Structures are given as C-alpha cells and as structure tokens.
C-alpha cells in the first residue's frame, strides 16, 4: 500500500504534461478551449499516472478533444463513444476513462448508448459539451436546441421539444449528475474533480459557446449584468440562494419549487429549500433538472446528485473471480473434454 502511495506521491505532473503536440483546431473563441484548459489543469491533481488515462470521444467539434490530450485516446465514430468506452473500461478497470461528447453526439445519434452506460454504471466520466447546435456539420439544430430555433435545417424554426440532458440521465438511473459552464472555469474545475471522485458513471454537462453557429446562447448565464440573477450555484447542505444581492431564493411548495424574494421580509433564508446531493431518491435532482433557462427559474449549476451504487466492471470482475473459485481456473483440456466423450480404438 505505502509503495503505491509513494508512487502516487512521486508523480508530479502539470497541465503541460497533458498537452499533446497536436495543434488545436477549434475556431478562435470557441468555448471548447476553456474546457480543454481546465481538464489539462485538473488531471494532475488526481495523482494518476498519465498513461492510465484514456479519453474516448465520438464525432463533432468537441470530439476532437482527445487529440489535444497527451494521454491515450480514441476518437471514435458518431454517437458511439460511450459504447467504445464500455469496452475499454470493461477490458481494463484500472484505467481512468473519460468520455468527451457533444449534444448531437451524445443525445441524438448516441442517445441509446448514453442511457445504457448510465444504467450499467461503468465507472467512467462523461463530459457533454452542450452548445445546443451541431457545430462540425455547420449549424443544424440539435436535440437540445430550443423550440423555434432557426438553423440551416430548420429555416422555419425547430419544432422539436428539446431534451433536458440531466433529466434524461436521471431517467436512466444516473448516480452522478452535474452542470458546469465554459466561462466559469473555477467552478468547472470543481465539477471535474467531483466527477472524477464519483465511482460509477459521472455525467457532467458543460454549457459551451459555439461562436460560429450559436454565439451567445448562454450569455444570460455568463454576462456580468445578468449572470447573478440567472444562475443558481448549488452547494450541498446549503439553501438555494441567488441573485445580485443574494436576494432571491427557492422554496418548495409541495413538489413545486417557487422563487421568493428575500429582500422584502416575507421569506428568510431559513425557509429555503436546502440542497441535498446525496438524497437517496432521484426526485430532488429531478426537480433541479426541470429548472432551466427556458423556464422562469434560475439555471442551477453544480452537482445535482452524487449517490453511488455498484459499478458494472466490479460486477464483471467479481463474477470471473466467483467462477474461478467455483469451477477452478479455466483449463482447455477439460473444456475440450466436456460432455459425452468416447474413445475410438
């Protein structure tokens, strides 16, 4: 044990160690840069040897991410990163596996693998770059684009109700759900730490600005004059307060969250709902997942839910050990000779 600890101690990596020699090819000003920088800056904290990281992505602007990480990486096919990653982690549970995906990649073509990896609970980390648009194919609406959005493929406005990615994840039995945003890198860094820490599938949605095809979609959450009234930072055990002067809060009216004013004396901070990441039932997280920009509510940012259950790869390994214990380590000789065998003389 102490040897392992020593080894970990002795690894002193920096962001630079995680930077590959490939030129970064996103548009100037793309939100992806910030997320990349935060990830490169945060991984060294984990004390994991660089060679034990694997970044797996699908296809999209965001999915170019692995090329820029000086770790092992797979840039796979559209929508299937979660499925490839299941094999990577299943084959070698010791690896730290990170899935990088986009709103189109994860939720349009990849929606099925997305919900299945979550229910199976492989211990991997999913970072979904949500820019609410298809970037790489030059600007079609995505499953997170708002109704009415005019894009190349919806010249009369989209008629698709968007998914709320956190609701989808929770509906698929997610144990860890969080939201961060490209422009608040300090908070994002904390989200990445938390995703890493969670054993099981961690789902981190990151709002990301696409300067070319969807510029400013998240500006209410990032611009100085609107930000504080639009964002609700979640902290475990803390009441839900927000607003420029910390003058607003959320109370629960039965099952419905209500915005209240703390300034006019009707409600005090003690009346507010208190955030509980670890609530056994996903109901609380579900309620948070319904509060978003498209509603009147502020947008919660932070960890919605962090509850562990057994991981898939543990189950897989356990069954193998069990089978070896029960039936003895597999032996070809006896495998060949199973069943009714006879001798011809």
């Amino acid at each position: 044990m102490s040897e392992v600890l020593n080894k970990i101690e002795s690894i002193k990596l920096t962001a630079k160690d995680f930077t590959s020699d490939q030129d970064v090819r996103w548009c100037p000003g793309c939100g992806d840069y910030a997320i990349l920088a935060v990830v490169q800056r945060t991984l060294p904290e984990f004390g994991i040897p660089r060679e034990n990281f694997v970044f797996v992505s699908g296809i999209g602007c965001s999915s170019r991410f692995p090329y820029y990480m000086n770790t092992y990486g797979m840039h796979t096919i559209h929508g299937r990163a979660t499925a490839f990653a299941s094999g990577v982690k299943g084959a070698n549970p010791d690896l730290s596996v990170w899935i990088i995906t986009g709103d189109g990649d994860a939720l349009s073509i990849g929606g099925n693998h997305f919900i299945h990896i979550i229910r199976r609970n492989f211990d991997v980390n999913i970072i979904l770059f949500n820019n609410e648009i298809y970037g790489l194919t030059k600007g079609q609406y995505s499953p997170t684009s708002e109704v009415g959005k005019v894009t190349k493929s919806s010249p009369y406005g989209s008629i698709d109700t968007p998914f709320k990615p956190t609701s989808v994840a929770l509906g698929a039995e997610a144990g860890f759900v969080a939201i961060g945003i490209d422009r608040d890198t300090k908070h994002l860094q904390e989200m990445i730490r938390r995703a890493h820490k969670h054993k099981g599938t961690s789902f981190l949605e990151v709002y990301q600005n696409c300067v070319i095809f969807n510029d400013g979609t998240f500006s209410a959450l990032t611009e100085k004059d609107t930000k504080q009234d639009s964002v609700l930072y979640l902290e475990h055990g803390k009441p839900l307060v927000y607003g420029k002067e910390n003058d607003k809060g959320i109370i629960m009216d039965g099952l419905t969250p209500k915005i209240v004013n703390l300034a006019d004396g009707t409600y005090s901070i003690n009346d507010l709902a208190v955030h509980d990441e670890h609530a056994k039932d996903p109901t609380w997280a579900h309620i948070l997942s319904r509060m978003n920009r498209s509603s009147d509510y502020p947008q919660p940012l932070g960890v919605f839910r962090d509850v562990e259950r057994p991981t898939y790869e543990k189950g897989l390994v356990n069954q193998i050990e069990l089978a070896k214990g029960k039936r003895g380590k597999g032996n070809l000789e006896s495998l060949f000779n199973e069943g009714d065998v006879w001798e011809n003389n």
Partner: protein
Amino acid sequence: MEKEVQVLEDVTIRFAGDSGDGMQLTGTQFTNVSAMMGNDLATLPDFPAEIRAPIGTLYGVSGFQVHIGSGKIHTPGDHSDVLVAMNPAALKVNLRELDTNGIIIANEDQFTEKNLKYAGYEVSPLEDNSLVKYRVFKIRITHLTGLALEDLKLPNKTVDRCKNFFALGLIFWLFSRDSEPTIAWIKDKFKKTPELVEANIRALKAGFNYGVITEAFQSKYEISSAQLPKGKYRNITGNTAMAIGLVTAVQKAGLELFLGSYPITPASDILHDLSKLKNFGIKTFQAEDEIAAIASAIGASFAGDLGMTTTSGPGVSLKGEAIGYAVMTELPLVIVNIQRGGPSTGLPTKTEQSDLNQAIYGRHGEAPLPVIAPATPSDCFIMAFEACRLAIKYMTPVIILSDGYLANGSEPWKIPSPSDFPEIKVEFLTEKNGKLPYSRNEFNARPWIKPGTPNLEHRIGGIEKANVSGNISYDPENHHNMVYLRKAKIENIANDIVPAELFGNETGDVLVVGWGSTYGAIRKAVELQQSAGKKVSHLHIRHLYPMAKNVESLLKGFKKVLVPEMNTGQLASLLRSDFLVPTIQLNKVYGQPFKASEITKKIDEVLRG
C-alpha cells in the same frame, strides 16, 4: 422373442413433432449415443421461428434429422429412412423427404380430428391408403407412456412431456443403441426433481421394451461403428466448436477475451456458451444493440483484450460503420456471422450463405479485411482459431462466415490436445524504440500498444492518418498510399495461409468449387462421381478473402467450374471477377442445405455439356 438383426451401412432418422414435444432433445440424445457408439454422423436441426407455435399446426413443427453410419458421413442425409411423427402436422411436413419403403412411427393418439384438421388432412392418413409406399407403425405413444407412469401419479401435463422418451426408447431398440448414456443424462438433468428422473427413465425403458416385446417390428438394425481414426471423440455443434475455438486462441495468445454481443438467432448460443466460461477470465457483455456490441469489442481491443462480436446478417448490417473504424484504426477484432435466410428478417431459423458479398464489400470506402469460412461443424473450431491468429498478427478485423446449418448441426469431433496448437505470438509495444503508433513491421502490421504503458500515449481515430505517426492527415498522397497499404496488408495474408485443398486430381472435366457449409454435400457428390470414374474434383475455399495463392491455377486446370451455393452466386461472381474464369452456377436459396443428389445431378448435367 428374438428378432432378426440387419446390419446397415447408414441410416437417416428424422424426429418430428410440435415445438413443445422435445424433438430437438430427442434428436440430440440419439445423436450423442450414436456418436459414443462410434458412428460418424451429421445432424440437421430444423425448427420454426416461433417459440412455441399453437399445438398441432404445420408451422409449429420442429424437426431434427440425424444421419449416422459406419463410413464417413458428410451430410445429414438427402432423405430420411425413418420418420418419427408425433402428430399429423409432423407427418404432413416431413413425408416428402421420406424414402420409399421408409419407416413411419406415428403417435396414433395425436391423430385426432382436431389435429388432422390443423394439418389439413380430411381423413387420417393412417387410415386411408395414402401411406402404402411406406412401412407404417401406428403406436399409441401418449397412452402407453401414461400407462408406464400411472402409479407415479404425476400431473397429466408432466406425463405428456415424457412421451418423447418413449419414442426415443423405441428407436434405441430399433437401432440397437445403448440407453445408458441417456439414462445418465436424465439423472443429471433432472437431479433437482427426482420424480422427473424416474418418469423419463421409465418412459425410455417402456419404449425400448415395446420394441422388444411387441410383434410390430420384424427386425431390428445395427450400424457398426465408423472407421474414424483412433482417439477421443465428442459430438459437437458448430456454435460450440466456435466458442471453444475462440477460447483456445485467446489462451494460446495469452490474452483475455472480451465478447460484445447482442442476442440473435442463430448466433446467440455462442454468447451463451462463452458466458458460462467466466472461469477462463472471459468477459461477456450483452450490449444494448449490435453497434454497441462491436464498439465495446473494439474498445476492449484498444485496451489490450482480444475483442470479438458474434451475430447474424441483420447484426452485420448494423456493424458496417464500426467495422470500417476497426479497419482504419488497425485493431484486432473477430466478427462472427452465423448466416441465416435473408434479406431483412428473412427466415431467421433457416440456413443460407448470402452474406459473402456483405462480408467482403459491405462498408463504405475501401475497407478490406480477411473473410474466412468453416466447412463443417468441427471446422468452426479451426477457423475460430485462425481468425484470432490473423486478427492479432495483422492487426485487423476478421470476419468468420458460419451459417445456421453449421451452427446447430453436429458431427463427431476428434478431441485434440491443447498442446497440438501453436502459441499465438502477441507483442505489445512497451518501449518506444523508435516506433510510432503506425510504424510497420514486416507484415505491414502496426504495433499494438496498451493504455497503461508509460510514454507510449497516443490517439487513434477514424480520420485518415499519416503512416508511421498515426496523426490525422488530410494529405492527398498519404490517403492514396494508406488506402493501398491497408489493402496490401490484407492481400499479403495470401502468403500466410494454407493452400486451398483439392480433393481429386489437379486437372479434369469439372471442378466443383464451394465454400462454407456446402462442404459435406459437395464432397459426397464428388466422391460418387469419382467412384463412377468421372474426372471431377472438389475445391473448398475456406479463406475467401484473400484466397490462397493456388486457387487460380487449380481453377484453370479444369474444363468447367461448377459453383454450388446457397445464394444466387456470390462466390461465383468473385471467381469471375478475380480470375476471369467462366463459372456454372448451382444455386439453392431454400433455407436448407444442399442434398448430395442435387449436386450429383448437376455434375452429370455439366459433364454431358
């Protein structure tokens, strides 16, 4: 009463009844016992797409044909000599395959008005004169089974379920089989419910004794054991042989096996078999669909396991994109396609060979990979091993084309010793030594680098890559070169495979060229022609892409090339395109294997010109 004993060279028996009548089990027991008694054999299970169709219906009939003999047996028999018909529908469906003078054993109790109507009989065929060509034995099997179990006081339903053992016992007597192995099997199978052990054994014995005691049968038969080479044997289906072959290969390579699979008929049994073998460290992952299945397998290969995926045609149609990805990233991967009747959902429980074109061409872009096909159930073992060898050595996905007939059919397998097989060399790159992710060895293979290896961090992907470095490259010339490099890598495998084996002379009038499960029927037909003095040879192609180097010259040694296939001519078209040889086709897309006689007839025709 002592009865006359006739010695037969071979016999084909068909067990037929409702899906719920246990005919597959009965057939399998007869097969295993015959195998253990030293007969060579081949089997043909034939079941409906419905799990358990309504009782008595024509489409609910489940059949199992087994051909046993004292000589080499190549096919499950063109026709049957004996038909066990548990109800009118079973008789109706299977009668046309019964030889004149063949034996019918019919469960008279089931020839009720209702069942006759289901089967479309106006009058019972047991009562009119329609079966005069055959030797008919009507036996009240249900009733007699009931009598035998009377004092056990079991529910009617349970008693009814034992009647297949009565039939089996009778057949055991008729063909002088040893009941002991089946009794042992019953004891093990039902060990948790002793009353079922007792009931089934009683039924079996009652059937056997019925043969001994009654006057019905004038003679019984013996089939002496076959002249199989000395050694230990077991009866094996293609799917089990496939599973064992895959396990053997990974053990010989010192790798772990990761199977990503999604259930589909007739491939699921490989998934089932491998799931049981967890003590070999095998990881089976039942994915949400075929795409996730192959994607997870490729991910596993990237991580250093040998990734595999098993499926049938519809599954392969979904895997095309991911297969192309494996070609591009040059990772080892084994793809097993147990072909079935197509297109679309087609005939899911029937056999066919119509996915050859898909295996070779079924992806966008230039995405070549080796395609191989086993010829018999036990050859699935060999070809599974071969697929793993090629995948690892050449860092490539490999497709194995088996089919429903091989998968469920069986034959005696001379059990090899694990030490008969060579190690499969795997060299993970562990130190840079000037190598890069797309460096090439003498086989044009790139190095396999396991995540977790320090200082060899690298990224792979589906975008075209620069040779050697493996970095993304949009360079036009590089793309052209890489397309041809990947092609050359695969084509070069022609230098590393066994020459295609010719049965017969190297020149002659007709060369019959086959692939896959038509092996037995072709071989038998060609043997017959040869013994009739005809200049006919048989070439069976087990490596379909690339083909062995000797194929071209062999083809050119014959006046005519006949290609029997269970499709509309896919290998034939390949031969024409590759070698510019004219081909004569014999195609059968019946969802059923060829009969040797069909091929013999066609050869006659070709010989006549």
